Protein backbone atom coordinates (compact mmCIF):
# COMPACT_ATOMS: atom_id res chain seq x y z
CA UNK A 1 0.00 0.00 0.00
CA UNK A 2 1.09 3.53 -0.72
CA UNK A 3 1.29 4.66 2.90
CA UNK A 4 3.93 2.07 3.73
CA UNK A 5 6.08 3.68 1.05
CA UNK A 6 5.52 7.04 2.65
CA UNK A 7 6.49 5.70 6.02
CA UNK A 8 9.78 4.39 4.63
CA UNK A 9 10.56 7.75 3.02
CA UNK A 10 9.87 9.63 6.20
CA UNK A 11 12.77 9.99 8.64
CA UNK A 12 11.74 6.75 10.20
CA UNK A 13 12.49 7.24 13.85
CA UNK A 14 12.57 11.00 14.37
CA UNK A 15 8.81 11.46 14.96
CA UNK A 16 8.89 8.47 17.27
CA UNK A 17 11.85 9.91 19.13
CA UNK A 18 10.16 13.27 19.32
CA UNK A 19 7.10 11.63 20.70
CA UNK A 20 9.09 9.70 23.28
CA UNK A 21 10.85 12.92 24.30
CA UNK A 22 7.54 14.74 24.60
CA UNK A 23 6.08 12.02 26.75
CA UNK A 24 9.17 11.87 28.90
CA UNK A 25 9.13 15.65 29.31
CA UNK A 26 5.51 15.71 30.36
CA UNK A 27 6.02 12.68 32.56
CA UNK A 28 3.01 11.00 34.06
CA UNK A 29 0.89 14.04 33.30
CA UNK A 30 0.45 12.95 29.69
CA UNK A 31 -1.23 9.77 30.81
CA UNK A 32 -3.30 11.03 33.67
CA UNK A 33 -4.11 14.52 32.46
CA UNK A 34 -3.97 17.49 34.80
CA UNK A 35 -4.68 16.92 38.48
CA UNK A 36 -7.90 17.76 40.29
CA UNK A 37 -6.66 21.09 41.61
CA UNK A 38 -5.13 22.17 38.31
CA UNK A 39 -8.27 21.34 36.33
CA UNK A 40 -10.47 23.18 38.82
CA UNK A 41 -8.25 26.26 38.78
CA UNK A 42 -8.04 26.23 34.96
CA UNK A 43 -11.82 26.11 34.65
CA UNK A 44 -12.36 28.62 37.45
CA UNK A 45 -10.05 31.11 35.76
CA UNK A 46 -11.57 30.75 32.32
CA UNK A 47 -15.11 30.95 33.77
CA UNK A 48 -14.23 34.03 35.79
CA UNK A 49 -12.80 35.72 32.72
CA UNK A 50 -15.76 34.62 30.61
CA UNK A 51 -18.19 36.04 33.21
CA UNK A 52 -16.11 39.20 33.54
CA UNK A 53 -16.48 39.77 29.81
CA UNK A 54 -20.24 39.75 29.89
CA UNK A 55 -21.99 43.08 29.55
CA UNK A 56 -24.37 42.12 32.34
CA UNK A 57 -21.49 42.18 34.83
CA UNK A 58 -20.38 45.64 33.80
CA UNK A 59 -23.92 46.97 33.79
CA UNK A 60 -24.38 45.51 37.26
CA UNK A 61 -21.08 47.00 38.41
CA UNK A 62 -22.04 50.42 37.03
CA UNK A 63 -25.42 50.08 38.74
CA UNK A 64 -23.64 49.19 41.97
CA UNK A 65 -21.42 52.27 41.81
CA UNK A 66 -24.38 54.56 41.09
CA UNK A 67 -26.18 52.86 43.90
CA UNK A 68 -23.31 53.49 46.30
CA UNK A 69 -23.10 57.15 45.29
CA UNK A 70 -26.82 57.51 45.89
CA UNK A 71 -26.58 55.76 49.23
CA UNK A 72 -23.64 57.85 50.35
CA UNK A 73 -25.34 61.09 49.39
CA UNK A 74 -28.52 59.99 51.16
CA UNK A 75 -26.81 58.98 54.39
CA UNK A 76 -24.65 62.09 54.35
CA UNK A 77 -27.63 64.40 53.87
CA UNK A 78 -29.60 62.66 56.56
CA UNK A 79 -26.86 62.78 59.16
CA UNK A 80 -26.00 66.42 58.49
CA UNK A 81 -29.56 67.66 58.78
CA UNK A 82 -30.40 68.96 62.26
CA UNK A 83 -33.91 67.72 62.65
CA UNK A 84 -35.21 64.94 64.82
CA UNK A 85 -32.12 62.78 64.32
CA UNK A 86 -29.74 64.84 66.42
CA UNK A 87 -28.97 62.39 69.20
CA UNK A 88 -26.28 59.75 68.63
CA UNK A 89 -28.74 56.94 69.24
CA UNK A 90 -31.15 58.35 66.71
CA UNK A 91 -28.37 58.84 64.19
CA UNK A 92 -27.34 55.22 64.54
CA UNK A 93 -30.94 54.18 64.20
CA UNK A 94 -31.32 56.15 61.01
CA UNK A 95 -28.04 54.94 59.49
CA UNK A 96 -28.87 51.33 60.25
CA UNK A 97 -32.27 51.64 58.64
CA UNK A 98 -30.89 53.17 55.47
CA UNK A 99 -28.13 50.59 55.42
CA UNK A 100 -30.68 47.81 55.68
CA UNK A 101 -32.72 49.13 52.80
CA UNK A 102 -29.57 49.49 50.71
CA UNK A 103 -28.40 45.96 51.51
CA UNK A 104 -31.85 44.63 50.72
CA UNK A 105 -31.73 46.12 47.25
CA UNK A 106 -28.11 44.93 46.88
CA UNK A 107 -29.01 41.39 47.86
CA UNK A 108 -31.72 41.33 45.20
CA UNK A 109 -29.23 42.59 42.60
CA UNK A 110 -26.70 39.96 43.65
CA UNK A 111 -29.29 37.20 43.48
CA UNK A 112 -30.21 38.25 39.96
CA UNK A 113 -26.54 38.27 39.03
CA UNK A 114 -26.03 34.79 40.47
CA UNK A 115 -28.88 33.37 38.41
CA UNK A 116 -28.42 35.34 35.19
CA UNK A 117 -24.66 35.03 34.72
CA UNK A 118 -24.51 31.29 35.36
CA UNK A 119 -27.75 30.04 33.78
CA UNK A 120 -26.25 29.35 30.35
CA UNK A 121 -22.80 28.17 31.35
CA UNK A 122 -23.47 24.42 31.12
CA UNK A 123 -26.59 24.33 28.92
CA UNK A 124 -25.17 26.93 26.56
CA UNK A 125 -21.82 25.18 26.18
CA UNK A 126 -23.50 21.81 25.67
CA UNK A 127 -25.72 23.14 22.89
CA UNK A 128 -22.96 25.17 21.23
CA UNK A 129 -20.53 22.24 21.40
CA UNK A 130 -17.89 24.26 23.28
CA UNK A 131 -17.96 21.62 26.01
CA UNK A 132 -17.09 18.81 23.55
CA UNK A 133 -13.52 19.95 23.07
CA UNK A 134 -13.13 20.29 26.85
CA UNK A 135 -14.83 17.09 28.02
CA UNK A 136 -12.79 14.92 25.64
CA UNK A 137 -9.58 16.10 27.31
CA UNK A 138 -8.18 13.92 30.12
CA UNK A 139 -10.05 15.78 32.85
CA UNK A 140 -12.62 14.63 35.39
CA UNK A 141 -16.05 15.88 34.51
CA UNK A 142 -16.85 16.81 38.09
CA UNK A 143 -13.80 19.08 38.14
CA UNK A 144 -15.28 20.99 35.22
CA UNK A 145 -18.45 21.72 37.19
CA UNK A 146 -16.52 22.52 40.37
CA UNK A 147 -14.18 24.81 38.44
CA UNK A 148 -17.03 26.70 36.82
CA UNK A 149 -18.80 27.03 40.16
CA UNK A 150 -15.61 28.36 41.74
CA UNK A 151 -15.18 30.90 38.94
CA UNK A 152 -18.71 32.25 39.37
CA UNK A 153 -18.45 32.17 43.17
CA UNK A 154 -15.27 34.26 42.87
CA UNK A 155 -17.01 36.74 40.61
CA UNK A 156 -19.99 36.97 43.00
CA UNK A 157 -17.65 37.45 45.98
CA UNK A 158 -16.06 40.44 44.28
CA UNK A 159 -19.45 41.87 43.43
CA UNK A 160 -20.66 41.44 47.02
CA UNK A 161 -17.46 42.99 48.30
CA UNK A 162 -18.03 45.98 46.02
CA UNK A 163 -21.69 46.64 46.62
CA UNK A 164 -22.35 45.31 50.13
CA UNK A 165 -18.86 46.03 51.41
CA UNK A 166 -19.27 49.53 49.96
CA UNK A 167 -22.56 50.08 51.79
CA UNK A 168 -21.11 48.86 55.07
CA UNK A 169 -18.06 51.08 54.69
CA UNK A 170 -20.12 54.14 53.86
CA UNK A 171 -22.41 53.50 56.83
CA UNK A 172 -19.40 53.04 59.13
CA UNK A 173 -17.60 56.15 57.91
CA UNK A 174 -20.62 58.42 57.92
CA UNK A 175 -22.08 57.00 61.13
CA UNK A 176 -18.64 57.15 62.78
CA UNK A 177 -18.90 53.71 64.32
CA UNK A 178 -17.93 50.27 63.08
CA UNK A 179 -20.72 47.83 62.50
CA UNK A 180 -20.14 44.85 64.76
CA UNK A 181 -21.39 42.16 62.39
CA UNK A 182 -19.96 43.33 59.06
CA UNK A 183 -18.10 40.07 58.35
CA UNK A 184 -21.12 37.94 59.25
CA UNK A 185 -23.34 40.09 57.03
CA UNK A 186 -21.01 39.66 54.05
CA UNK A 187 -20.77 35.90 54.62
CA UNK A 188 -24.55 35.53 54.80
CA UNK A 189 -25.01 37.52 51.59
CA UNK A 190 -22.36 35.44 49.85
CA UNK A 191 -24.04 32.27 51.05
CA UNK A 192 -27.31 33.51 49.57
CA UNK A 193 -25.61 34.15 46.24
CA UNK A 194 -23.80 30.79 46.00
CA UNK A 195 -26.97 29.02 47.05
CA UNK A 196 -28.74 30.45 44.03
CA UNK A 197 -25.66 29.82 41.89
CA UNK A 198 -25.69 26.10 42.77
CA UNK A 199 -29.39 25.76 42.02
CA UNK A 200 -28.99 27.54 38.69
CA UNK A 201 -26.06 25.34 37.68
CA UNK A 202 -27.90 22.15 38.65
CA UNK A 203 -30.84 23.25 36.48
CA UNK A 204 -28.45 24.24 33.72
CA UNK A 205 -27.17 20.66 33.36
CA UNK A 206 -30.63 19.58 32.25
CA UNK A 207 -32.66 22.60 31.15
CA UNK A 208 -32.05 25.48 28.78
CA UNK A 209 -30.50 28.72 30.02
CA UNK A 210 -33.84 30.52 30.10
CA UNK A 211 -35.59 27.72 31.99
CA UNK A 212 -32.75 27.46 34.50
CA UNK A 213 -32.82 31.18 35.22
CA UNK A 214 -36.60 31.13 35.51
CA UNK A 215 -36.59 28.19 37.95
CA UNK A 216 -34.05 29.87 40.22
CA UNK A 217 -35.75 33.25 40.21
CA UNK A 218 -39.10 31.50 40.68
CA UNK A 219 -37.81 29.76 43.79
CA UNK A 220 -36.35 33.06 44.97
CA UNK A 221 -39.77 34.69 44.55
CA UNK A 222 -41.44 31.82 46.39
CA UNK A 223 -39.08 32.26 49.32
CA UNK A 224 -39.72 36.01 49.28
CA UNK A 225 -43.51 35.60 49.49
CA UNK A 226 -43.11 32.80 52.02
CA UNK A 227 -40.98 35.11 54.19
CA UNK A 228 -43.73 37.73 54.19
CA UNK A 229 -46.40 35.21 55.11
CA UNK A 230 -44.23 33.99 57.96
CA UNK A 231 -43.65 37.48 59.36
CA UNK A 232 -47.28 38.40 59.07
CA UNK A 233 -48.23 35.13 60.78
CA UNK A 234 -45.78 35.85 63.58
CA UNK A 235 -47.25 39.32 64.17
CA UNK A 236 -50.82 38.08 64.21
CA UNK A 237 -50.01 34.79 65.88
CA UNK A 238 -51.33 32.66 63.00
CA UNK A 239 -49.42 29.41 63.27
CA UNK A 240 -50.45 28.17 59.78
CA UNK A 241 -48.85 31.23 58.19
CA UNK A 242 -45.67 30.72 60.22
CA UNK A 243 -45.55 27.07 59.14
CA UNK A 244 -46.07 28.01 55.50
CA UNK A 245 -43.20 30.44 55.79
CA UNK A 246 -40.94 27.81 57.30
CA UNK A 247 -41.93 25.39 54.54
CA UNK A 248 -41.03 27.95 51.88
CA UNK A 249 -37.69 28.52 53.60
CA UNK A 250 -37.02 24.80 53.46
CA UNK A 251 -37.84 24.77 49.73
CA UNK A 252 -35.54 27.77 49.16
CA UNK A 253 -33.71 29.32 52.13
CA UNK A 254 -32.67 32.52 50.32
CA UNK A 255 -35.15 34.79 52.08
CA UNK A 256 -34.38 33.23 55.46
CA UNK A 257 -30.74 34.16 54.87
CA UNK A 258 -31.73 37.72 54.07
CA UNK A 259 -33.81 37.97 57.26
CA UNK A 260 -30.88 36.64 59.24
CA UNK A 261 -28.70 39.32 57.63
CA UNK A 262 -31.27 42.00 58.39
CA UNK A 263 -31.36 40.92 62.02
CA UNK A 264 -27.62 41.53 62.25
CA UNK A 265 -27.97 45.20 61.31
CA UNK A 266 -31.54 45.87 62.34
CA UNK A 267 -32.10 48.92 64.54
CA UNK A 268 -34.25 48.05 67.58
CA UNK A 269 -36.86 50.64 66.57
CA UNK A 270 -37.70 48.90 63.31
CA UNK A 271 -38.02 45.53 64.99
CA UNK A 272 -40.54 47.03 67.38
CA UNK A 273 -42.45 48.77 64.59
CA UNK A 274 -43.46 45.48 63.02
CA UNK A 275 -43.01 43.68 59.74
CA UNK A 276 -41.38 45.27 56.73
CA UNK A 277 -39.81 43.70 53.66
CA UNK A 278 -36.42 44.97 54.81
CA UNK A 279 -36.53 43.83 58.40
CA UNK A 280 -37.13 40.78 60.36
CA UNK A 281 -39.58 40.04 63.09
CA UNK A 282 -38.90 36.35 63.19
CA UNK A 283 -35.22 35.62 63.21
CA UNK A 284 -34.26 32.49 61.32
CA UNK A 285 -32.37 30.13 63.59
CA UNK A 286 -28.78 28.91 63.36
CA UNK A 287 -30.25 25.63 62.19
CA UNK A 288 -31.69 27.43 59.17
CA UNK A 289 -28.26 28.88 58.33
CA UNK A 290 -26.69 25.41 58.58
CA UNK A 291 -29.54 24.08 56.44
CA UNK A 292 -28.75 26.75 53.83
CA UNK A 293 -25.07 25.78 53.83
CA UNK A 294 -26.01 22.13 53.27
CA UNK A 295 -28.54 23.17 50.63
CA UNK A 296 -25.86 25.11 48.72
CA UNK A 297 -23.44 22.18 48.94
CA UNK A 298 -26.10 19.70 47.82
CA UNK A 299 -27.07 21.91 44.88
CA UNK A 300 -23.44 21.83 43.73
CA UNK A 301 -23.23 18.06 44.25
CA UNK A 302 -26.47 17.60 42.32
CA UNK A 303 -25.08 19.71 39.47
CA UNK A 304 -21.98 17.49 39.44
CA UNK A 305 -23.97 14.24 39.47
CA UNK A 306 -26.35 15.38 36.73
CA UNK A 307 -23.47 16.59 34.57
CA UNK A 308 -21.49 13.36 35.10
CA UNK A 309 -24.47 11.31 34.01
CA UNK A 310 -25.69 13.20 31.04
CA UNK A 311 -24.80 12.68 27.39
CA UNK A 312 -23.01 15.68 25.93
Amino acid at each position, binding site marked *: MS*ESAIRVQAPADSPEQQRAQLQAAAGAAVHGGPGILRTTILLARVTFREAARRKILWIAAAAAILFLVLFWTGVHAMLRSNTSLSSTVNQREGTSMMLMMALYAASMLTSMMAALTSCDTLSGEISSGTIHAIATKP*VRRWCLVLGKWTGFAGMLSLYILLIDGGCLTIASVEGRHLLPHAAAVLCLLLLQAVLLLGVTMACSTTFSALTSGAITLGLYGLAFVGGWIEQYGALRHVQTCVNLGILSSLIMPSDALWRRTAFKIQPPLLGAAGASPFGSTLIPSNAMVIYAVLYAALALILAIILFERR*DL
Partner: protein
Amino acid sequence: MATLTIDAVRLRKNYGTRTAVRDLTLQVKRGEAFGFLGPNGAGKSTSIKMLLGLVKPTSGRALLLDRPVGDREVRARIGFLPEHFRFYDWLSASELILFHGRLCGLAEDQLRRKIPMLLERVGLGAQHAKPIRSFSKGMMQRVGLAQAIVNDPEILFLDEPTSGLDPAGRKLVRDLIREQRERGATVFLNSHLLGEVEQSCDRVAFIRQGNVIAIHEMGAWQAGKTEVEIQVSRVAPSTLESLRRVAQEIRLEGRMLRLHVDGESRLPEVVRCLVEGGAEVYSVVPHRVSLEELFLSTMGPDPGL
Protein backbone atom coordinates in the same frame (compact mmCIF):
# COMPACT_ATOMS: atom_id res chain seq x y z
CA MET B 1 1.67 -3.07 20.63
CA ALA B 2 -1.94 -3.82 19.92
CA THR B 3 -2.95 -3.66 16.28
CA LEU B 4 -6.45 -2.37 16.92
CA THR B 5 -6.89 1.20 18.11
CA ILE B 6 -10.67 1.24 17.90
CA ASP B 7 -12.69 -1.88 18.61
CA ALA B 8 -16.43 -1.32 18.83
CA VAL B 9 -18.82 -4.20 19.15
CA ARG B 10 -22.59 -3.81 18.76
CA LEU B 11 -22.72 -0.30 20.18
CA ARG B 12 -26.27 0.92 20.46
CA LYS B 13 -27.77 4.19 21.57
CA ASN B 14 -31.42 4.84 22.27
CA TYR B 15 -32.82 8.25 23.09
CA GLY B 16 -36.14 7.37 24.66
CA THR B 17 -37.94 5.32 22.02
CA ARG B 18 -35.78 6.63 19.19
CA THR B 19 -32.74 4.60 18.21
CA ALA B 20 -29.91 6.84 17.05
CA VAL B 21 -27.38 4.06 16.56
CA ARG B 22 -28.57 0.49 16.19
CA ASP B 23 -25.44 -1.54 15.70
CA LEU B 24 -22.03 0.03 15.45
CA THR B 25 -19.44 -2.68 14.98
CA LEU B 26 -16.08 -1.69 13.56
CA GLN B 27 -12.39 -2.24 14.04
CA VAL B 28 -9.75 0.29 13.13
CA LYS B 29 -6.11 -0.70 12.90
CA ARG B 30 -3.18 1.30 14.22
CA GLY B 31 -1.97 3.87 11.72
CA GLU B 32 -5.01 3.56 9.54
CA ALA B 33 -7.08 6.46 8.18
CA PHE B 34 -10.66 5.44 8.53
CA GLY B 35 -13.52 7.27 6.82
CA PHE B 36 -16.97 7.29 8.33
CA LEU B 37 -19.71 8.14 5.87
CA GLY B 38 -23.44 8.33 5.93
CA PRO B 39 -26.37 10.58 5.08
CA ASN B 40 -27.65 13.21 7.49
CA GLY B 41 -29.25 11.70 10.57
CA ALA B 42 -27.61 8.30 10.04
CA GLY B 43 -26.08 8.36 13.52
CA LYS B 44 -22.55 9.50 12.63
CA SER B 45 -22.31 12.16 15.31
CA THR B 46 -23.76 9.91 18.01
CA SER B 47 -21.33 7.17 16.97
CA ILE B 48 -18.29 9.43 17.20
CA LYS B 49 -19.53 10.79 20.57
CA MET B 50 -19.86 7.24 21.91
CA LEU B 51 -16.31 6.46 20.83
CA LEU B 52 -15.12 9.62 22.58
CA GLY B 53 -16.98 8.86 25.79
CA LEU B 54 -19.22 11.93 25.52
CA VAL B 55 -22.33 9.78 25.11
CA LYS B 56 -22.88 6.58 27.06
CA PRO B 57 -23.99 3.69 24.87
CA THR B 58 -27.25 1.94 25.78
CA SER B 59 -25.58 -1.39 25.09
CA GLY B 60 -22.51 -2.90 23.48
CA ARG B 61 -18.88 -2.28 24.27
CA ALA B 62 -16.01 -0.34 22.78
CA LEU B 63 -12.30 -0.24 23.41
CA LEU B 64 -9.94 2.54 22.42
CA LEU B 65 -6.25 1.67 22.65
CA ASP B 66 -7.29 -1.47 24.58
CA ARG B 67 -9.06 0.48 27.27
CA PRO B 68 -12.74 1.25 27.76
CA VAL B 69 -13.88 4.39 25.94
CA GLY B 70 -14.11 7.49 28.10
CA ASP B 71 -11.23 6.34 30.31
CA ARG B 72 -9.15 9.36 31.30
CA GLU B 73 -5.90 7.72 30.29
CA VAL B 74 -7.36 7.09 26.84
CA ARG B 75 -8.51 10.68 26.57
CA ALA B 76 -4.93 11.82 27.18
CA ARG B 77 -3.96 9.94 24.03
CA ILE B 78 -6.67 11.11 21.64
CA GLY B 79 -7.43 14.35 19.86
CA PHE B 80 -10.80 15.59 18.69
CA LEU B 81 -11.95 18.31 16.35
CA PRO B 82 -15.69 18.75 16.95
CA GLU B 83 -18.03 19.70 14.14
CA HIS B 84 -18.47 23.52 14.05
CA PHE B 85 -15.63 24.06 16.52
CA ARG B 86 -16.45 27.01 18.77
CA PHE B 87 -14.81 28.41 21.86
CA TYR B 88 -14.71 31.43 24.16
CA ASP B 89 -14.27 34.09 21.54
CA TRP B 90 -12.27 36.51 23.68
CA LEU B 91 -9.30 34.15 23.83
CA SER B 92 -6.53 34.62 21.32
CA ALA B 93 -5.53 31.69 19.15
CA SER B 94 -2.45 30.96 21.22
CA GLU B 95 -4.33 31.32 24.52
CA LEU B 96 -6.90 28.82 23.22
CA ILE B 97 -4.23 26.25 22.38
CA LEU B 98 -2.52 26.93 25.71
CA PHE B 99 -5.78 26.26 27.55
CA HIS B 100 -6.35 22.98 25.70
CA GLY B 101 -2.73 21.96 26.16
CA ARG B 102 -3.07 22.53 29.89
CA LEU B 103 -6.26 20.49 29.93
CA CYS B 104 -4.21 17.71 28.36
CA GLY B 105 -1.82 17.98 31.29
CA LEU B 106 1.13 19.13 29.17
CA ALA B 107 4.01 20.96 30.82
CA GLU B 108 4.14 24.76 30.50
CA ASP B 109 7.62 25.07 28.95
CA GLN B 110 6.78 22.39 26.44
CA LEU B 111 3.59 24.23 25.47
CA ARG B 112 5.42 27.52 25.11
CA ARG B 113 7.75 25.91 22.58
CA LYS B 114 5.06 24.00 20.80
CA ILE B 115 2.22 26.51 20.38
CA PRO B 116 3.98 28.84 17.87
CA MET B 117 4.94 25.79 15.81
CA LEU B 118 1.39 24.45 15.82
CA LEU B 119 -0.14 27.78 14.84
CA GLU B 120 2.45 28.18 12.12
CA ARG B 121 1.57 24.72 10.87
CA VAL B 122 -2.14 25.51 10.53
CA GLY B 123 -1.36 28.83 8.84
CA LEU B 124 -2.27 31.11 11.73
CA GLY B 125 1.24 32.15 12.75
CA ALA B 126 0.52 35.81 12.02
CA GLN B 127 -2.84 35.77 13.77
CA HIS B 128 -1.69 34.14 17.00
CA ALA B 129 -2.44 37.13 19.21
CA LYS B 130 -5.78 38.11 17.68
CA PRO B 131 -8.94 37.25 19.57
CA ILE B 132 -10.75 34.43 17.82
CA ARG B 133 -13.87 36.62 17.80
CA SER B 134 -12.42 38.17 14.65
CA PHE B 135 -11.82 34.78 13.00
CA SER B 136 -13.66 33.46 9.96
CA LYS B 137 -15.21 30.01 10.00
CA GLY B 138 -12.22 28.59 8.18
CA MET B 139 -9.77 30.13 10.65
CA MET B 140 -11.78 28.72 13.56
CA GLN B 141 -11.56 25.31 11.97
CA ARG B 142 -7.77 25.72 11.76
CA VAL B 143 -7.48 26.64 15.45
CA GLY B 144 -9.68 23.63 16.16
CA LEU B 145 -7.26 21.42 14.27
CA ALA B 146 -4.33 22.81 16.22
CA GLN B 147 -5.99 22.11 19.59
CA ALA B 148 -6.82 18.58 18.41
CA ILE B 149 -3.17 17.74 17.79
CA VAL B 150 -1.60 19.66 20.68
CA ASN B 151 -1.01 16.41 22.62
CA ASP B 152 0.32 14.40 19.63
CA PRO B 153 -2.68 12.07 19.84
CA GLU B 154 -2.53 8.39 18.98
CA ILE B 155 -6.03 8.59 17.57
CA LEU B 156 -7.24 11.77 15.92
CA PHE B 157 -11.01 12.14 15.53
CA LEU B 158 -12.07 14.70 12.96
CA ASP B 159 -15.75 15.52 12.65
CA GLU B 160 -16.39 17.26 9.33
CA PRO B 161 -12.94 18.92 9.37
CA THR B 162 -13.22 20.45 5.92
CA SER B 163 -16.67 22.00 6.22
CA GLY B 164 -16.26 25.73 5.83
CA LEU B 165 -12.73 25.48 4.48
CA ASP B 166 -11.55 26.87 1.17
CA PRO B 167 -9.49 24.68 -1.19
CA ALA B 168 -6.22 25.71 0.51
CA GLY B 169 -7.72 24.82 3.88
CA ARG B 170 -8.89 21.47 2.58
CA LYS B 171 -5.41 20.72 1.32
CA LEU B 172 -4.06 21.66 4.75
CA VAL B 173 -6.39 19.11 6.35
CA ARG B 174 -5.25 16.43 3.89
CA ASP B 175 -1.60 17.25 4.55
CA LEU B 176 -2.15 17.24 8.30
CA ILE B 177 -3.88 13.88 8.14
CA ARG B 178 -0.90 12.54 6.18
CA GLU B 179 1.60 14.00 8.67
CA GLN B 180 -0.26 12.60 11.62
CA ARG B 181 -0.22 9.18 10.01
CA GLU B 182 3.47 9.40 9.27
CA ARG B 183 3.87 10.00 12.98
CA GLY B 184 2.01 6.74 13.54
CA ALA B 185 -1.37 8.14 14.52
CA THR B 186 -4.70 6.63 13.57
CA VAL B 187 -7.17 9.02 11.95
CA PHE B 188 -10.93 8.67 12.20
CA LEU B 189 -12.53 10.98 9.68
CA ASN B 190 -16.21 11.79 9.63
CA SER B 191 -17.05 13.71 6.49
CA HIS B 192 -19.71 14.55 3.96
CA LEU B 193 -17.15 15.41 1.35
CA LEU B 194 -16.55 12.06 -0.29
CA GLY B 195 -13.72 13.41 -2.38
CA GLU B 196 -11.79 14.29 0.76
CA VAL B 197 -12.36 10.84 2.20
CA GLU B 198 -11.34 9.23 -1.06
CA GLN B 199 -8.04 11.10 -1.01
CA SER B 200 -7.20 10.57 2.66
CA CYS B 201 -8.57 7.24 3.82
CA ASP B 202 -7.57 3.59 3.59
CA ARG B 203 -10.96 2.25 4.47
CA VAL B 204 -14.47 3.61 4.68
CA ALA B 205 -17.55 2.54 6.59
CA PHE B 206 -21.02 3.41 5.34
CA ILE B 207 -23.60 3.99 7.99
CA ARG B 208 -27.34 4.23 7.42
CA GLN B 209 -30.16 4.40 9.95
CA GLY B 210 -27.79 3.60 12.75
CA ASN B 211 -26.26 0.51 11.15
CA VAL B 212 -22.86 0.00 9.59
CA ILE B 213 -24.00 -1.42 6.27
CA ALA B 214 -20.69 -1.78 4.47
CA ILE B 215 -16.96 -1.40 5.04
CA HIS B 216 -14.76 -1.01 1.97
CA GLU B 217 -11.04 -1.10 1.44
CA MET B 218 -10.31 2.06 -0.53
CA GLY B 219 -10.03 1.24 -4.21
CA ALA B 220 -10.79 -2.44 -3.72
CA TRP B 221 -14.18 -2.05 -5.30
CA GLN B 222 -12.44 -1.02 -8.55
CA ALA B 223 -11.39 -4.64 -9.04
CA GLY B 224 -14.94 -5.61 -9.92
CA LYS B 225 -16.85 -5.18 -13.13
CA THR B 226 -15.74 -2.13 -15.12
CA GLU B 227 -17.45 -0.30 -17.95
CA VAL B 228 -15.13 0.76 -20.76
CA GLU B 229 -15.61 3.31 -23.53
CA ILE B 230 -13.49 2.74 -26.61
CA GLN B 231 -13.25 5.06 -29.63
CA VAL B 232 -12.73 2.86 -32.67
CA SER B 233 -13.29 2.74 -36.41
CA ARG B 234 -13.49 -0.11 -38.91
CA VAL B 235 -14.85 -2.72 -36.54
CA ALA B 236 -15.80 -5.87 -38.44
CA PRO B 237 -18.77 -7.94 -37.22
CA SER B 238 -16.41 -10.89 -36.75
CA THR B 239 -14.31 -8.77 -34.37
CA LEU B 240 -17.35 -8.04 -32.26
CA GLU B 241 -18.07 -11.75 -32.19
CA SER B 242 -14.57 -12.59 -30.96
CA LEU B 243 -14.81 -9.82 -28.33
CA ARG B 244 -17.60 -11.71 -26.59
CA ARG B 245 -14.99 -14.10 -25.18
CA VAL B 246 -13.47 -11.31 -23.04
CA ALA B 247 -16.28 -8.76 -22.62
CA GLN B 248 -20.00 -8.49 -22.00
CA GLU B 249 -22.81 -6.11 -22.91
CA ILE B 250 -21.07 -4.98 -26.04
CA ARG B 251 -22.74 -2.05 -27.84
CA LEU B 252 -21.37 -0.23 -30.89
CA GLU B 253 -22.85 3.20 -31.64
CA GLY B 254 -21.04 4.91 -34.52
CA ARG B 255 -17.42 5.12 -33.45
CA MET B 256 -18.15 4.55 -29.77
CA LEU B 257 -17.84 1.02 -28.48
CA ARG B 258 -19.12 0.38 -24.95
CA LEU B 259 -18.56 -2.87 -23.11
CA HIS B 260 -18.11 -4.39 -19.66
CA VAL B 261 -15.06 -6.37 -18.53
CA ASP B 262 -14.29 -8.22 -15.29
CA GLY B 263 -11.71 -5.78 -14.02
CA GLU B 264 -9.18 -3.56 -15.73
CA SER B 265 -6.76 -6.46 -16.11
CA ARG B 266 -8.79 -7.62 -19.09
CA LEU B 267 -8.23 -4.39 -21.04
CA PRO B 268 -5.05 -5.37 -22.93
CA GLU B 269 -6.84 -8.46 -24.15
CA VAL B 270 -9.74 -6.37 -25.45
CA VAL B 271 -7.39 -4.02 -27.28
CA ARG B 272 -5.39 -6.91 -28.77
CA CYS B 273 -8.61 -8.50 -30.00
CA LEU B 274 -9.70 -5.25 -31.68
CA VAL B 275 -6.34 -4.58 -33.29
CA GLU B 276 -5.96 -8.13 -34.55
CA GLY B 277 -9.44 -7.84 -36.08
CA GLY B 278 -8.25 -4.85 -38.11
CA ALA B 279 -9.97 -2.12 -36.11
CA GLU B 280 -8.32 1.22 -35.34
CA VAL B 281 -8.32 2.20 -31.68
CA TYR B 282 -8.22 5.92 -30.73
CA SER B 283 -8.87 5.82 -27.02
CA VAL B 284 -9.72 3.38 -24.22
CA VAL B 285 -11.35 4.89 -21.15
CA PRO B 286 -12.25 2.59 -18.26
CA HIS B 287 -15.00 4.09 -16.19
CA ARG B 288 -13.84 3.97 -12.55
CA VAL B 289 -16.53 3.84 -9.90
CA SER B 290 -16.02 6.83 -7.64
CA LEU B 291 -16.60 6.66 -3.93
CA GLU B 292 -19.62 8.87 -4.52
CA GLU B 293 -21.18 6.40 -6.96
CA LEU B 294 -20.43 3.55 -4.61
CA PHE B 295 -21.94 5.55 -1.75
CA LEU B 296 -25.08 6.39 -3.69
CA SER B 297 -25.58 2.85 -4.94
CA THR B 298 -25.00 1.43 -1.43
CA MET B 299 -27.34 3.91 0.21
CA GLY B 300 -30.05 3.26 -2.36
CA PRO B 301 -32.48 5.88 -3.64
CA ASP B 302 -32.78 9.10 -1.66
CA PRO B 303 -35.82 8.66 0.56
CA GLY B 304 -36.25 12.44 0.73
CA LEU B 305 -36.36 14.46 3.88
